């Protein structure tokens, strides 16, 4: 019996099709797992470690006076009074008119300080009166009292009033031309102290050099508008021989009056100047080394701090400390930290009660490093550190046992991969 080639070819095509189809392997039997796949992993165990914190302390967040990324100009009644200092210790003595040679500066026109303002965080309805004082002094650079003493009538340079609507992203604060010319011609420092006042509580956040938004002094050395205005960056020439400190002091905030600091027994995060919390744990190696931690939560008891904006939100960011054991100073150790948790904790200064900080990712790092090379330590900081005045407080390990920081760890045992 002979058959035509058509059925044979069709059959061959079908076989080739099936062979190609089967090359794409699909081994997933999940559809029937409710019946055929009992759980392989073990139950998750949860333990709460009460006495796990071996060291918790509040430390300064930034490396020095004036290192904040923002300047705060605030007048909030009895609660808060802050001033902004901007130093122009080096003013140009010459300029180049358009199409002419370099000449000494004989006049100053349209002198102003350009301030970058965060309009979203302005508090108060205005009008805002901003006074500028001459705060040049031979007193110690970081002496707040000495600087505050210079905010007096005989030191007043100028005063300007701004309606709320006048406070745009960029604010021009005009200075008397004569005052600027005087500093140029006498070769002295132009150090300006700003103070705000308003009928109601007021607060303005201004960009600083550390925040990358530097206040600038601009003026014309000639009324001729064809000549470009001169731009002067803030500069502090003191303290001599300490360039980093001097750099921070080119613009900074001083607190004339502030909320009382947190008691030493409390842990404080944020505020101004900003603080961080350093916490070191003693975690049994049986948990870190021999189990698979699936979740770890730091249980903190928040203490209410109602003095300043108690209902404003603050995001707290936990970080992992990468400083080794040789770094014994917690303040320095908090500078050697990195974000690995990827989550923030939303709190309010006036809030209270238990707050949970998720730390599972820290455990995955600790699992791969010995405590000798990587202490089991974290840092708590505010996400908006230095850009917000709000401070969050927690109970420390010195508080009653029910209020102390604790660690809640959920883990599973490793599944033995064996013959079924």
């Amino acid at each position, binding site marked *: 019996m002979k058959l035509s080639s058509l059925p044979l070819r069709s059959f061959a095509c079908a076989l080739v099709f099936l062979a190609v189809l089967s090359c794409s392997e699909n081994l997933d039997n999940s559809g029937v797992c409710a019946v055929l796949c009992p759980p392989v992993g073990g139950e998750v165990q949860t333990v709460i470690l009460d006495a796990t914190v071996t060291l918790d302390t509040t430390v300064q967040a930034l490396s020095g006076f004036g290192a904040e990324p923002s300047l705060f100009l605030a007048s909030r009644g009895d609660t808060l009074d802050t001033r902004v200092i901007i130093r122009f210790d080096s003013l140009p003595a010459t300029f180049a008119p358009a199409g002419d040679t370099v000449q000494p500066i004989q006049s100053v026109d349209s002198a102003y300080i350009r301030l970058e303002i965060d309009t979203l965080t302005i508090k108060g309805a205005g009008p805002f009166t901003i006074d500028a004082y001459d705060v040049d002094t031979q007193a110690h650079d970081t002496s707040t009292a000495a600087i505050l003493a210079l905010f007096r009538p005989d030191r007043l340079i100028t005063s300007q009033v701004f309606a709320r609507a006048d406070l745009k992203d960029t604010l021009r604060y005009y200075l008397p031309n004569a005052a600027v010319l005087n500093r140029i011609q006498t070769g002295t420092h132009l150090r300006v102290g700003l103070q705000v006042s308003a009928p109601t509580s007021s607060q303005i956040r201004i960009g600083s050099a550390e925040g990358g938004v530097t206040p600038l002094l601009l003026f014309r050395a000639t009324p001729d508008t064809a000549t470009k205005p001169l731009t002067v960056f803030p500069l502090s020439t003191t303290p001599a021989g300490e360039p980093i400190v001097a750099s921070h002091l080119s613009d900074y905030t001083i607190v004339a009056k502030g909320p009382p600091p947190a008691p030493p027994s409390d842990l404080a995060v944020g505020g101004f100047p900003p603080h961080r919390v350093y916490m070191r744990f003693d975690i049994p190696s049986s948990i870190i080394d021999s189990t698979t931690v699936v979740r770890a939560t730091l249980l903190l008891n928040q203490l209410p701090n109602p003095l300043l904006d108690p209902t404003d939100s603050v995001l707290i960011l936990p970080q992992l400390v990468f400083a080794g054991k040789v770094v014994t100073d917690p303040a320095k150790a908090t500078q050697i930290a990195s974000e690995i948790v990827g989550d923030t904790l939303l709190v309010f200064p006036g809030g209270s009660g238990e707050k949970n900080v998720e730390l599972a990712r820290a455990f995955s790092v600790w699992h791969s490093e010995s405590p000798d090379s990587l202490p089991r330590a974290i840092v708590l900081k505010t996400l908006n550190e230095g850009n917000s005045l709000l401070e969050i407080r927690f109970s420390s390990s010195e508080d009653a046992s029910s209020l102390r920081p604790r660690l809640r760890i959920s883990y599973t045992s490793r599944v033995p991969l064996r013959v*079924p």
Partner: protein
Amino acid sequence: MRKLFIAVAVAVVSSRGGAQGALSIQGLGYPTGGMSARAEGTGGGVADFDALSLVSPASLVAVGSAALFFQYSPEFRRVTAGSASAKTTTARFPLVEGVLPMGQQWTLGLSSSTFLDRSFETSLVRRQAVGATTDSVDVTERNKVLGAINDVRLALAWARSPVFRIGVGAHVFSGSNRITFAQLFPDSTKYISSEQSGRLSFAGFAASLGVEYHPVRAIGFALSGRKGGDLRAQSGDTAIGNAKLPDHYAGSVVYEGIPGTSISARVAHDSWSSLASLSSSNTKAFDGWDMGGGVELTGPRLLQRIVILRVGARVRTLPFGFNGERVSERSFTGGIGLPLARDRAGFDFAIQHANRTVKADVKERGFILSFGLRVSP
């Protein structure tokens, strides 16, 4: 009421099971059988007389000339449990063989076949309390196993005449299972997902013997057996278990008294229970019978080639049970054989429809296609 019954059954079964997503891949896996596409097409009946099947070393003599043989056998499987079902496709390469006649009487064969294939992937979502007593989360357990135990055989066969053939084989069983187990949590900011991976290695030895006797041209008998030695399992450098490779005995008969037709039947017994000591979860292994038979006949002529048609049926017990119950496999098979290149090559195709059942409300149906290619260089 029926839904309630199924739900209860599911709960009971899942709480006791040691299963791996399908009936056929329990325990150490699915035994592909070591049969060529030709033998599969006849329900395994002709396997002991087929040079390209690896069940009897005596059959090597039948190859006639030096040959290389390669087989691809994908399986399309559907598992049904109550109202749930899953479809999978498993690509297997169960057989590769080289046969070399040495003179008029001796034939040497080197082959590798899949002994137990264990390839599956499952994903199970379960609710788990993690952290505070009020916190719970869906955990996804993903379990993936890839690998097999393979049977590498060096065989030598002798035949002085077509009446009597005898062969011996030395077997090395080796292979590994690559296991990946992951627990996945949905919120990476709160939870850490974990993944473990490992490799189980197997090594063992066995020896086989086969004889064929054809008292007359129309009828033939075959007996074969494989005596299992030790099988050792290791995880890394650590020994995790020992067992005996199962003994295998088979007897076959073939009748070729009708011109152009070959009728064959085979019965075999496997002592799978000898592998039970390797199990860490008390997965039960059952000794079982493997019975099959079929017909091979000369079919129509296509493109000046004679097509061989095959049909058969097979019943066997799979090695590893489900929830302590024996899993049976019933297969209906069919296939074709096509000589190529003036018989210097041959193509065989077989299709098996296998039903695997247990007493529980779980069913499994598989279509196994086998593509075999023989080349005589």
